[in-house]
C-alpha cells in the first residue's frame, strides 16, 4: 500500500537552537508523487471535511500535471490564506480525516500539498488582484486575525471600502502574536496582509475599539461592521502562588517571543530565560509555549496535562515534534499550588497525579485526583496555557450587543449579531477554535454583509 512521502524537516538537535521553520515543505517531485495517489473521487469526502470546501481533487489534479499556478488559483477561489492553513490546519481532524484512502492506508497529505502550491506562488510572485468598481459602501472590520482578514478580503474584492481596526501594532491576530515563527513564518502572514492592502483595504493599527472609538460610533460612521475580535483573554487556574514572579499566561509569553521578538538580541523585549519551565495545558498553545521556552535555552521543559496522551488536544504533528525535541510530558498530572521562593518568585510546582474516571458531559473521561499523590516538580517559570475567553474591551460603550454568559457574541446562522448591520465571527463567537473555522466565519459574514448592503 502506498504511503505519503516524508516531510523534510530540520533535525531536532539543530532546530531547538533556532526559531526557523521546522517543517520545510515538500519538494515538487514529492508533491507530484503524493498527488498521484489521489483517486480524484467523484464524490470527494475530503471536501466535506474542509470548513471552506476547497475543491481538493481539483487542485490535486493540477499538481499531477505539475501546474502549481492553476492549482493555487483553484485553492484561492475559496481559501484566502492557503500558506497559513496548509501549515496549521488540524488536517487530521478535517479534510484528511475523511479522505477515502485513510481507510486502508494513509490519507492524502492535503495540507502539505496546499502548502507547496501557496509557497510556489509566493516564490514566483503573487499576481495583483482584480478589484470590482467601488460600491460607495463602507465596512469597518474590528480585529485583523484570520476572521477579520478573510471578511476584509471578500468585502474589498467586491468593491466595498474596507477599514480594518487592530489593537496591536501588527496585523494578523494570533497568527502574529501567538503561533511561533518556527511553525508559521511571520513573513508569510505579512504577505497575506499586504495582499489585503492591495485589495484596497485600509488597516489602522494601534486602534482599540471600545477605547478610541466605541462600537456605537463605528455603526454610526460605517454602513456595516464585522467583529473578529478573537478570544485573547487568558484564563488562570486560581491556585495559590499564581501571581508570583515567573508565572506567565501563554499569551504573555508568546506575545513577548513572537510579536515582540524577545528571542532576537537586537529587540528590547525582556523575557526570563529559565532552567526549568512548566507549561500547564495540552493544546496547540501549550506546545507552542513549551517549544518556544526550549528554544530560549531552558534545560528542561515539561508539559503538565491532567488527562492522558490520547486526549491531548494539540495537533498530532506538533505533539510529535515536541516529543522529538525533548519536551517532557507529565501526563495525568495537575498543579495544585505554585511554590514561592526568594523575592516572590517561582521555586517549584506542587502537583497531584490524576486517573481517568467515568466520561463527563463532553464524553471525555473525567480526571480524578489520586489521593496522597502530591509531589513537587522543580520550576522557575510556569506558563499557564489552559484556555482563553473572548476579548471583552469591544463591549465598552456598545449598546444592544447580545453576549452569552461566557462572553461570546451571539449571532444568527448568517453571522449577524443582535445589532442590525453588525456581523461577528471567529473565536469571538465560538471561543478559542481554529484558524480555518475563523476564516469560514469571516467568509459567511462577508456574504451576509454584502447582501445587507445591496438591499
Amino acid at each position: 500500500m502506498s504511503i505519503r512521502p516524508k516531510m523534510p524537516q530540520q533535525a531536532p538537535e539543530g532546530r531547538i537552537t533556532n526559531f526557523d521553520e521546522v517543517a520545510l515543505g515538500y519538494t515538487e517531485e514529492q508533491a507530484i508523487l503524493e498527488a498521484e495517489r489521489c483517486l480524484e473521487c467523484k464524490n470527494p469526502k475530503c471536501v466535506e471535511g474542509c470548513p471552506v470546501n476547497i475543491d481538493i481533487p481539483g487542485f490535486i489534479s493540477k499538481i499531477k500535471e505539475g501546474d502549481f499556478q492553476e492549482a493555487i488559483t483553484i485553492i484561492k477561489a475559496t481559501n484566502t490564506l492557503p500558506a497559513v492553513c496548509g501549515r496549521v490546519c488540524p488536517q487530521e481532524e478535517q479534510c484528511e480525516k475523511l479522505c477515502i484512502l485513510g481507510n486502508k492506508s494513509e490519507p492524502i497529505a492535503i495540507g502539505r500539498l496546499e502548502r507547496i502550491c501557496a509557497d510556489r506562488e509566493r516564490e514566483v510572485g503573487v499576481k495583483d488582484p482584480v478589484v470590482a468598481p467601488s460600491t460607495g459602501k463602507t465596512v469597518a472590520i474590528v480585529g485583523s486575525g484570520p476572521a477579520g482578514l478573510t471578511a476584509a478580503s471578500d468585502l474589498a474584492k467586491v468593491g466595498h471600502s474596507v477599514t480594518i481596526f487592530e489593537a496591536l501594532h501588527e496585523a494578523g491576530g494570533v497568527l502574529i502574536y501567538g503561533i511561533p515563527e518556527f511553525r508559521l513564518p511571520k513573513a508569510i502572514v505579512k504577505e497575506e496582509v499586504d495582499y489585503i492592502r492591495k485589495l484596497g483595504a485600509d488597516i489602522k493599527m494601534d486602534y482599540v475599539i471600545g477605547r478610541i472609538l466605541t462600537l456605537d460610533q463605528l455603526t454610526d460612521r460605517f454602513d456595516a461592521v464585522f467583529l473578529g475580535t478573537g478570544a485573547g483573554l487568558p484564563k488562570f487556574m486560581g491556585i495559590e502562588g499564581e501571581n508570583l514572579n515567573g508565572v506567565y499566561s501563554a499569551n504573555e509569553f508568546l506575545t513577548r517571543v513572537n510579536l515582540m521578538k524577545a528571542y532576537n538580541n537586537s529587540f528590547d523585549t525582556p523575557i526570563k530565560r529559565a532552567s526549568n519551565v512548566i507549561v500547564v495545558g495540552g493544546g496547540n498553545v501549550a506546545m507552542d509555549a513549551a517549544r518556544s521556552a526550549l528554544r530560549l535555552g531552558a534545560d528542561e521543559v515539561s508539559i503538565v496535562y491532567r488527562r492522558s496522551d490520547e486526549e491531548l488536544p494539540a495537533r498530532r504533528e506538533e505533539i510529535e515534534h515536541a516529543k522529538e525535541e525533548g519536551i517532557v510530558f507529565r501526563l495525568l498530572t495537575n498543579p495544585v499550588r505554585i511554590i514561592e521562593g526568594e523575592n516572590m518568585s517561582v521555586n517549584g510546582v506542587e502537583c497531584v497525579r490524576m486517573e481517568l474516571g467515568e466520561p463527563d458531559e463532553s464524553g471525555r473521561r473525567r480526571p480524578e485526583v489520586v489521593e496522597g499523590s502530591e509531589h513537587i516538580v522543580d520550576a522557575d517559570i510556569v506558563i499557564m496555557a489552559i484556555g482563553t475567553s473572548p476579548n471583552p474591551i469591544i463591549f465598552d460603550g456598545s449598546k444592544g450587543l447580545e453576549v452569552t454568559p461566557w462572553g461570546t457574541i451571539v449571532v444568527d446562522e448568517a453571522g449577524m449579531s443582535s445589532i442590525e448591520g453588525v456581523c461577528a465571527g471567529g473565536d469571538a463567537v465560538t471561543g478559542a477554535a481554529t484558524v480555518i473555522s475563523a476564516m469560514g466565519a469571516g467568509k459567511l459574514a462577508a456574504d451576509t454583509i454584502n447582501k445587507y448592503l445591496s438591499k
Partner: protein
Amino acid sequence: MAYKIIEKRQLVPDVHLMNIQAPDVAAAAKAGQFIILRIDEAGERIPLTIADYNADEGSVTIIFQEMGKTTKQLAKMSAGEELLDFVGPLGKESEIEKLGTVVLVGGGVGIAPIYPQAKEYRAAGNKVISIIGARNKDMLILEAEMIAASDEVLVATDDGSKGHHGFVTDLVKQLLDGEEHIDRIVAIGPPIMMRAVADVTGPYDVETLVSLNPIMVDGTGMCGGCRVNVGGEVKFACVDGPEFNAKDVDFNLLMSRLSFYRKEEADAITKSQKGCGDDCKCQ
C-alpha cells in the same frame, strides 16, 4: 502611521515633557487614562499616563522620567521626530464627579497624571487641594500648572529645600486631622509612596484611590502581565484599572512584580551604552 513629536522639553533633570501629534487619541482621551508607545521596530511597548490632551490641536502630552533603555532613548528624541506606535487611550477613565473636597497627591513624576485630574475635579465643582512632592526643589515638576489648577497647593520635599521638610504623607495626615471634611484622596506616584498614603489614610473613613503602574505589554487585557491583587481578587490593571481603591491593593506584590526584569533591564542599558551590534552576545 507615525506619531510626530510636536514639542519636547526637559522639565527638571531626567524628566521630560512631550507633545505628540495623535488626533484620534486626543479626541477620545480622558483623565486617568494612559497610552502605550513604541519608538521603533525593535522597541519595547511602554505605558505612560496621559498628562494632558488637546482635542482641537490633536495633541497628547506625556511626561516621563528616564528609568531605563526606552525612556532614555525617548529622552534623546526631539521635536519633529516620529514615534512608531502610540496606542490609546487605554484603561478606565477616572470617575470624576462632584463630591465636595478632593485631595490630590502627586509624588515625583506622579504629579503629571494628577494634573489633568485636578483640572477635571475642579471643573466638576470640587474644592481641589493638591499635595505635590519631590526629592528637592529642583526636581519638582508642574508647580505653576498645579497652582493654576487647584484651590490650594501644598509642597513637600525630602530635603526641605521647598515647602514641608518631609514626605507628602505628613501633609496628608495633617489634612486628615484638620477641620476640613475630605471626600476623596487620589494619590499617584512611586508604589512606595502610594503604599505610604494608603497606610496613612487606612484608619480614616476616607475613600483613597491610587493609580497602579505594573509592567504591561498590550494594555488591552490580552496578556495578564499587568495583574494585580486588589481585595484578594486578581485584576488586570490595564482594563480593570489603572485606578483602584488603595486600601485593597497588595503593594508588596506590585513592587516585587515591578522588579522582575531588573537584571534584563540593567543588561539592556549596558548593551546600549557599549553600543554593541545586533548579534552581540556580551551578556
